[in-house]
Structures are given as structure tokens and as C-alpha cells.
């Protein structure tokens, strides 16, 4: 673990990871009470990845996300109130209720979408990176996806194009070991997905996705590489989702022993241990945890009090009028 990150920044990182954890736990509860419809893919267990990555990015960098995207949006600086309102289908949600969990966009913070199609956003992120290059800007794009998406044609097509065009993009694979239920060992020809970068003459870097410092130092290296104009980089974060794929998951395909082994390396616990070792007062962390939980409660209240969208919204906005 590196310790070059100042205490204030560390507290911010801890706060963001705690926010995501509390938010997702709340979503789980709201689902069980029938207060949110549709489906939901929780980010619990993977918080160090989104928060570590977004810690390294500049505000004007772009992020494109996946079906499991609440954590990415919050890490990028998304507003929990607008996110919660969207998940409850209310009018003040990020997309006015039209998008929901898998179709969230927050253009004001350069968050260009969660995505309901596995690997669906990878080509779009590649296009955003091409736009940046054509505009001679020096910001970059992070395209999040999972181990399952790395077997999709879009992964191959997009990494190839990003490499031949030397685009400013980081392909960020969150390998949580399962594509819905199918384990990487049965779905993927290789256990270390970052090694696939070699097929595209691309830099590939692994990191420990449970350790936010490992994520940060690895992504810093990737960002330096990409911003220097060397072209794309594939980063693989080895991680684990603590909950099931979605709310219908009965977790028949993995053992409780395996889950417990990973939960011992809970990214928030690891960070907390590090911070306590660094003589940060436990009460400071408790205060942060409380603050984040309050933010989530405020978001729930905001979303509950918010009005549903009016009927005409459903049938309007298909086209932009010229």
C-alpha cells in the first residue's frame, strides 16, 4: 500500500466508498419492500474500483459504465438524490424516469451512461475517445465493463480500433469472477484478462480491486501512459461482487466459503484498517459513515417526496426537433 495520499483525500475516498455501500444497501432494502421496480445490479464489494479510478481522473474526463453502474456514477460525482429519484421512477431523476438503473446519464459530470447491454458501451466509449482525439483535447475516457464483456465481440473490435488509432481511453475490466453465474474458468480462455491487451499491442495492467491503493497506483500509471499520447490501456481490477448478479440470484453457482474468503478482504474494511493504522481517530471514520448514511436517507426522502413524471413525458422526446 502506498501512503502518499494525504489524510483529507483519504477521508474523501473512504466517504465515497461508504456512500456507495450505504446507497446500495438501501437499494437492496427498498427492493425487498417493493419500493423500486425492475431490476438492480448492486456494486457492493467493488467500491474500491470505481472510487479509486475516479479519484485519479480529472473532472473533465469521461466515464461510460455498465449495468452495475450506481457506484460508477456516485464515484464520478453523481448526486445521490437524482440517482435515487431515477431508480424510483420520479421526475427529478437523472433521466426523468425514462432510463432507470441501466440507462443513467449525467452529462453535466461527463458520465455518459450506464448500459443495459453487456459490452454495449465499449464501442461508444471508443467513439468518445476518438472525438477527444479529433478535437485535440487532452482528457480521456474510462470504459468500465466486466469479465463477461471481455468475451464479447465489442471488446475485441473496440480494443483493436482504439489501438490502431491510439485513442485516449482506459478499458477498465472489473473481473468479479462471474458473468451472471458462469465463472471465468468456464467462460474465458484466460484467467488474467489484462493479458489480452497484448493481442492489441496495448499496455495491460492488473490491480487488486479490493485494495483502493492498488487501484489508484495502477490507474495513475495508466492515465500517465494514455495522457502522454501512447494510446489506450487495459486495466483489470480483480474484485468480487458480494451480492448476487441481480435480485433474482440465488447464488447457487458459488460457495459460501468462497464468499466469506472474499468478504475478509472487504475493500472498505481494508481501507479502514489502513486508516486506523495511520492513526486516524475511529470517531472520525464513524462520523463519516454517519454522514454518508444521512446522505442516503436524504436521497430516499427526496425521491419519495418527488412527483412522478406526468403522462405526456412517456410519449415525448423520441426525436430532437430540428
Amino acid at each position: 500500500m502506498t501512503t502518499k495520499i494525504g489524510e483529507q483525500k483519504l477521508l474523501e475516498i473512504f466517504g465515497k466508498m461508504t456512500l456507495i455501500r450505504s446507497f446500495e444497501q438501501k437499494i437492496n432494502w427498498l427492493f425487498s419492500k417493493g419500493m423500486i421496480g425492475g431490476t438492480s445490479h448492486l456494486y457492493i464489494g467493488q467500491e474500491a474500483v470505481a472510487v479509486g479510478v475516479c479519484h485519479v481522473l480529472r473532472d473533465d474526463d469521461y466515464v461510460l459504465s455498465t449495468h452495475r453502474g450506481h457506484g460508477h456514477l456516485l464515484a464520478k460525482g453523481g448526486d445521490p438524490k437524482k440517482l435515487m429519484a431515477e431508480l424510483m421512477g420520479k421526475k427529478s431523476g437523472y433521466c426523468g424516469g425514462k432510463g432507470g438503473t441501466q440507462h443513467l446519464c449525467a452529462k453535466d459530470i461527463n458520465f455518459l451512461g450506464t448500459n443495459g447491454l453487456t459490452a454495449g458501451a465499449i464501442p461508444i466509449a471508443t467513439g468518445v475517445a476518438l472525438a477527444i482525439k479529433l478535437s485535440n483535447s487532452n482528457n480521456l475516457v474510462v470504459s468500465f465493463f466486466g469479465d463477461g464483456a471481455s468475451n464479447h465481440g465489442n471488446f475485441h473490435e473496440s480494443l483493436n480500433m482504439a489501438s490502431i488509432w491510439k485513442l485516449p481511453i482506459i478499458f477498465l475490466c472489473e473481473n468479479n469472477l462471474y458473468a451472471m453465474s458462469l465463472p471465468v474458468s468456464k467462460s474465458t480462455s484466460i484467467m488474467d484478462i489484462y493479458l489480452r491487451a497484448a493481442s492489441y499491442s496495448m499496455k495491460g495492467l492488473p490491480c487488486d480491486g479490493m485494495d483502493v491503493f492498488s487501484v489508484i497506483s495502477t490507474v495513475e500509471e495508466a492515465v500517465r501512459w494514455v495522457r502522454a499520447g501512447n494510446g489506450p490501456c487495459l486495466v483489470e481490477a480483480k474484485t468480487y461482487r458480494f451480492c448476487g448478479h441481480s435480485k433474482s440470484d440465488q447464488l447457487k453457482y458459488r460457495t459460501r466459503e468462497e464468499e466469506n474468503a472474499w468478504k475478509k478482504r472487504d475493500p472498505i474494511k481494508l481501507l479502514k484498517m489502513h486508516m486506523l493504522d495511520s492513526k486516524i481517530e475511529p470517531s472520525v471514520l464513524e462520523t463519516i459513515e454517519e454522514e454518508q448514511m444521512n446522505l442516503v436517507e436524504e436521497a430516499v426522502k427526496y425521491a419519495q417526496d418527488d412527483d412522478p413524471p406526468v403522462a405526456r413525458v412517456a410519449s415525448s422526446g423520441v426525436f430532437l426537433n430540428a
Partner: protein
Amino acid sequence: MSEDESVLLIGEDIGVYGGAFKVTEGLLESFGEKRVIETPISENSFMGVATGLAMMGFKPVVEIMFMDFIALAFDQILNHTTKFHYMYNGQVNIPMVIRTPAGAKGGYGPSHSQSLEALFIGIPGLKVVAPSDPYTAKGLLKSAINDPNPVLFVENKVLYGTKGEVPEESYLIPLNQAMIRREGTDLTIISYSRMLQLSLKVASFLEKQGVTLEVLDLISLSPLDEEAIIASIKKTKRVVVVDEGCKTGGIGAEISALLAEEAIEYLDAPIIRVGLPNVPIPASIFLERHVIPDEQKILDAVDQCLNW
């Protein structure tokens, strides 16, 4: 492209080669590699790349080499390109044109001859247009590029050889309006693209026999110009719909449903559809001609409708 620097071309072999049908010939020399972007054979992903570019303010014009290959990009078109403006509640819009050659051209066979427009007209957020002559092609393409939404621009391979008057100056053809190409009182043929040209020939032939057909060029397949369609049917009371796609679930089927809902009381005879029977398009020119609509098939349909 010379008027608007945000317009880019993206596709396979559109540079030095000029595209499989030479539509982009010379544009690489004129505008360079940053504006004429050649891609690997990665249809779904370069459609996604174009969508990303459009989200960032560029106006990509994508070429799909043969319309058949658009199947490979269908996910991006269906779930991303055409959905983003709506599902992100107006935060982004996708000013994109997808150009693609459709239709049979004497022996290209099952995977290089299809007219698949009907698969796209039911996709909300997508406009679908198809020109039938050079004048319309120019003005319609310009409107498609200017439009802030995704537009599927269907070209026909046989029509690439068509000659016609095209003004030097800039002009626009609306994306949502049908056009009466020939006025008549006895029956309306509704068609578009190459089949429109065949329909006009049938109308000329029949005029000599004292039958006057109205020929309506749809130009826009989505949205359909319902007003123009119904106005013509009110006038002639008989209709034949001609297109090159499969008859089942086709453009003709959609227009028949529209007329059944909105104009059945004006009709003096059943609606007759001319289209491809539900078979793949065989490669042999001796076989192809049996399935692709031609003047004789249109004429037979008109006879049937007039004599009902």
C-alpha cells in the same frame, strides 16, 4: 462536408477504394483521414464509435457496405443510437446518418441483395428514408445530415447508375414528406426507391391504354406521410403497394394496415401488395428475376386491382 467541419464519414473501404459502390470516391483526397475514417470490419463497434462521436457533437455519416451487413450493427442501432436521446431524457442527441445500399442487382445472392427497411421502421427514434432519383438523393441526404437525429438512408444498388438533373446549388428535400411523381385518377401505386422507377414505367405504359395511375413516392418510410397517402387513396380509391422487401411484415404490410385503419371506407377494391415472396434471394439471375418485383408483376397487380 465543406460547409460543416463536424461532418465525418465512417465505414469500410471508403477511402482510396471509394466505397464498394464508389459513393465516397475522392472524398479522402479532399477531406483527409480525420474526416474520412476507414474502419476495420467491425460493424457493431464502428456504429458504436459513430454514436460516441455524435454524443460529442460530431455528425458522422456511416456507410454500411451492403444493407445485409447492417445485421452486424443492429444492437448498436436498436439499443443505443436510437434510444439515447429519449432514455437520457434529452441530455444527448445523435445526429447520425447511416447510408447503405440495398436491393437486388442481378446475382449478388442471398446475403448481398436484401431490402431490409421494414426491420427498421418500427424502431422509435429512427427516421428511414430512401430516394428514387439523383435530384431527391442530393436534397434528402443533405436534410439527413442536417437532422439532429439518427437517419437511415437507404440507397438502391441499381439506382447508382441513374442519370438525372441535379442542381449545383444546395437544396433540401424534407425527410417526412411523400411526393406525387405522377398524377392519375384510376389507381394509386405507392412505392419508393427502385420500385418507384419501375412503377412509373408501368404508369407510362398504361396511359397509352387510357388508364391513368397516380404514383406516390414515399421517400420517407418512417415516419410515413399518412396525409399524402390517404389523400391519394381518397382520390383514386384503389391502391397497389410495391416494394422490394419481403411481403410479410413489410412496408406494404404497414401501409395496408394504415389504410385499413384510416381509409378503408374510401377503397373500392382490396389493397394489393407487390413484394418479395418469403424466400431468400437466390444468386442465379435466372432465379432472382422470379422473386424480385418487376414491371410485369406490378402490371398484374394493377390489373387485378382495377378489375376487382
